[in-house]
């Protein structure tokens, strides 16, 4: 599809194909509380990613034998709408979607105090309406905000962002084109206050030095995302007060 030779993933001034600098995030917009029926929800636009997340729970588990006596079960479904990709996606869950559902769940779980809800289940439904590079990170960001919106007891938010390599440069927040044509893509999720990594994957080639640089950069990206997540939650829960203050 793309002719590598004709592409400048990065120009002589360090500008990337979409005009960003090396350490620049794509534009991010998070809205909280977008799905009326859900216990918590969020919508994120992260570059061209458009993702909606709904949280149901804590609620009764069916079938009952799946319940755990000492803590809550967390379930997560990452799913792409058929119209979300360049060529139409078959709506049946792919192996990729199964894996991403798993790592998303595992990246969210350390942030939740599941022992507060024994015998219950929390369901996180992540629907990718439009997919760009980094949809799993975008989905985690929205999911963590939606879990907060659902009032689940949490240790921290989870903030996610990828970093990667384009030739010799380690850059922040890989987009679709950079994912396909670049040299490495490393999605990371992070608990900003507990300073812990809850998602880490890598496709591509890195020296060990590049690896730690890349991880560091991804974490710095997570910290930036964290601010946007907090803002989105503030806006929903203290929106009126903030406006009042601004007026005052």
């Amino acid at each position: 599809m793309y002719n590598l030779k004709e592409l400048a993933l990065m120009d002589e001034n360090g500008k990337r194909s979409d005009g960003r600098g090396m350490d620049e995030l794509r534009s991010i917009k998070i809205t909280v509380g977008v799905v009326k029926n859900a216990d918590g929800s969020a919508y994120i636009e992260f570059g061209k990613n458009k993702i909606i997340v709904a949280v149901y729970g804590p609620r009764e588990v069916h079938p009952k034998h799946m319940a755990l006596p000492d803590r809550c079960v967390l379930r997560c479904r990452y799913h792409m709408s058929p119209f979300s990709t360049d060529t139409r996606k078959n709506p049946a869950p792919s192996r990729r979607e199964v894996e991403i559902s798993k790592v998303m769940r595992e990246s969210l779980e350390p942030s939740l105090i599941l022992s507060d809800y024994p015998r219950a289940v929390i369901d996180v439904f992540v629907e990718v309406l439009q997919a760009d590079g980094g949809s799993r990170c975008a989905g985690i960001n929205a999911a963590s905000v939606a879990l907060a919106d659902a009032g689940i007891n949490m240790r921290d938010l989870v903030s996610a962002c990828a970093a990667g390599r384009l030739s010799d440069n380690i850059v922040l927040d890989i987009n679709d084109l950079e994912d396909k044509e670049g040299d490495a893509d490393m999605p990371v999720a992070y608990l900003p206050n507990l300073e812990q990594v809850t998602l880490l994957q890598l496709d591509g080639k890195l020296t060990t030095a590049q690896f730690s640089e890349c991880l560091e950069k991804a974490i710095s990206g997570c910290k930036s995302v964290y601010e946007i997540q907090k803002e989105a939650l503030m806006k929903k829960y203290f929106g009126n007060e903030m406006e009042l203050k601004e007026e005052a």
Partner: protein
Amino acid sequence: MSSSKRSTVIVEQLRKQQMLEALSREKRLDGRDFESYRNFEIEVGIIDKASGSAKVKLGNTEVIAGVKVETGEPFEGLENKGALIMSAEVLPTASPHVEPGPPDEDAIELSRVVDRGIRESEMLDLDKLVLIPGKIVYTVFVDCSIINSDGNLLDATSYAVVAALLTSKFPIYEIKDEQVVDTGKTMPPPITTMPISITAVRIGESVLLDPTTEEEACMDARITMTTQSDGNIVAVQKGFTGPFFFNQIVQFSEIARIKGEEMRSKIKELN
């Protein structure tokens, strides 16, 4: 479990009684009169990667439709027509009662009734979507995702599909050396008419348009009628387990035509 189910039965009966009392005073629980639709918003072009897309909010019901255009073989028996393929998924985001998984009979009925309105009205002129007769045609996928469910999914989905198709830009494909080539250019789709569905439920003797989930929980029967721009009826589907009298149906057909025209104008405006 049995006792909790029995109490559910009692709750249901109470709810229905309450609903019937309200309706007997010509009032719906949300204050609408029987023939009013809820607030209604359409946003189009929301998915850049699709050839067309639309998000419809009908009250709290929210649906996204996306159109993808590819090429493929025609259907058997329809060798000289483009292929139209419609699907709908009620996402598990939509309500606490949806299980993720392949579409159940309600979702299948939903997509087939919406499909019928588009297909029977010949909204999309499929004769114009042929590349090599009998061999290669345009394949138009219309996929719908129900994001939040608060009743009348059928009309909301139908409007989303109509709006997405109306505002689509189809890729222009050409045949070179028996191979399909995407020219990179686009064209408006070959639209001939605008089918609009109107749905009502009967609760006791009352017939209400655009039911909410609460109303659907009390309904005896449902009916959906789709009219095209010239007012002709192109699709009907009675749903749910209760019956209708002949007169109720004939009266509703008149309402569906008039209300359909009203909604058609609104959707045209919004685009």
